[in-house]
């Protein structure tokens, strides 16, 4: 899998690089534990934020996997592959954060695994426009969700003046920008021409809201 460079000189990780990143993070020193630097209230907030973001990126990863399983050979195949690679990098980053902040991952993980794949595959089977519509819906939900989190973290930063909130804010802001790009890409590739676009978009966004609510708590 070769490295694809996209506009703005950002490189996408190849499979080899991604797996190397994952193995080094699991061998990381046992003594790295940022949870102890946080007070109780901040710990709870970070716990919730990182858990739901990890669940969200994992869901997105599975959705793209489902879509690609149907649309691999079509002309949007490489595009979906490229968006999937970005989501894989997001997922790897949140898995790293789970280790650093000792966050409990969502117990609904196996459920999102199946549901995400089914959603991706189902919309892809309706056609590539429907797949793009699904992308648009999901990415819009995720962008709004990340913006809410950024507002929350900003409020926390303004209250305490603590610099370490900036790290998480930078990460979430970067990922939000990439999700917005995916949203725009989906619109460019005829998402609105999908049959029942409003219905697909509406129902998926309701589902995303429910998934976010659940994964924040459970």
């Amino acid at each position: 899998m070769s490295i694809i460079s996209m506009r703005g000189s950002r490189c996408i990780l190849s499979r080899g690089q991604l797996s190397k990143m994952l193995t080094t993070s699991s061998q990381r020193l046992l003594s790295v534990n940022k949870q102890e630097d946080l007070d109780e209230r901040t710990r709870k907030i970070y716990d919730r934020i990182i858990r739901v973001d990890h669940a969200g990126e994992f869901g997105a990863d599975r959705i793209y996997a489902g879509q690609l399983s149907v649309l691999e050979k079509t002309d949007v195949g490489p595009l979906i592959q490229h968006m999937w690679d970005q989501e894989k990098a997001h997922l790897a980053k949140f898995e790293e954060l789970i280790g650093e902040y000792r966050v409990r991952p969502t117990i609904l993980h196996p459920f999102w695994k199946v549901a995400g794949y089914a959603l991706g595959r189902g919309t892809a089977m309706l056609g590539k426009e429907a797949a793009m519509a699904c992308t648009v819906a999901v990415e819009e939900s995720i962008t709004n969700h990340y913006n809410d989190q950024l507002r929350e973290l900003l409020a926390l930063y303004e209250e305490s003046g603590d610099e370490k909130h900036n790290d998480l804010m930078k990460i979430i802001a970067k990922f939000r920008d990439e999700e917005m790009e995916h949203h725009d890409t989906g619109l460019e590739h005829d998402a609105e021409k999908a049959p029942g676009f409003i219905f697909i978009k509406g129902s998926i966004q309701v589902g995303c809201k429910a998934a976010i609510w659940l994964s924040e708590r459970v």
Partner: protein
Amino acid sequence: MARFVSRTRLLNLINTTFKTAPIRSVSMMRTHITSPHTSPVNKPTLLNSSRQISLSSITHNEEKPRTDQTVKEEIYTEAMKLVTEHGWTRKTLSLGAEAAGYAGVAEGLFNGGEELAVSFIQKCNDELVVYLKEMATIQENPDTKVPQSEFIRNAVEYRLRMLIPYISVWPQGLAVLHSPFVLKDTVGISTQMLDDIWYYAGDRSTDINWYTKRGLLGKLYFSTQLSMLNDQSPDFQDTWKFLNRRMDDIKVMGSLARSLSSLSLPQGIAEVGKAGLTSICNIAGLGQNRRS
């Protein structure tokens, strides 16, 4: 003309006279309980020997501020010395309060014997975390690294050994910990302990394995703890052997899960089907009789 008494000689005199912590007067104790944030009433006046003088306020240069927390710590320390005799009750706390130099009613700072037991397990877990951090730094060195299962086994043994001084009253302690007033705290503290052990053992799972690992460890820990309550062998050797057997079981389960996941779907179904059939035969009495 007053005889000049040097400060050191006077200090020695006081130290030899007051060998034990003197019981403070009732008025002073009321101050401790109702307004714990004020500075101590008994300012040391060295030459006024008629008033009870607190030993600590003379021998320490700075006076530690007395808060609810410090008083509770003192009562806890004294009460734990009496737990094997009087159990996990308000009586133990009140006797402990008296031993620490406060009135018996100071036990009201605690929410009954239940809170004594909860404080005990919290303190044990805090000590365990210190041990785990030490062991984790040893693990980082590839020369002294031990396998993860051995790390966990040693951590469980270390934590269970903390119960040994109180093992005679620990069955009551466990019962008290399950009282509805403190059950939520007990569960929270226990799950935090399981997470601590796995975290310092190096677990960084981000999927359902996070839950299965802690569930397994919980089962291991609590079953070993129960076995410890009935153990009469010297230095609880039977309990550690039980622990080793449970660790072996887990290793077998782990390798089983790995071998299953490497099979294809029809093979996997066949393996599970065979296991189910064997179980049914055993239940019906047709299987082998093997006790291990």
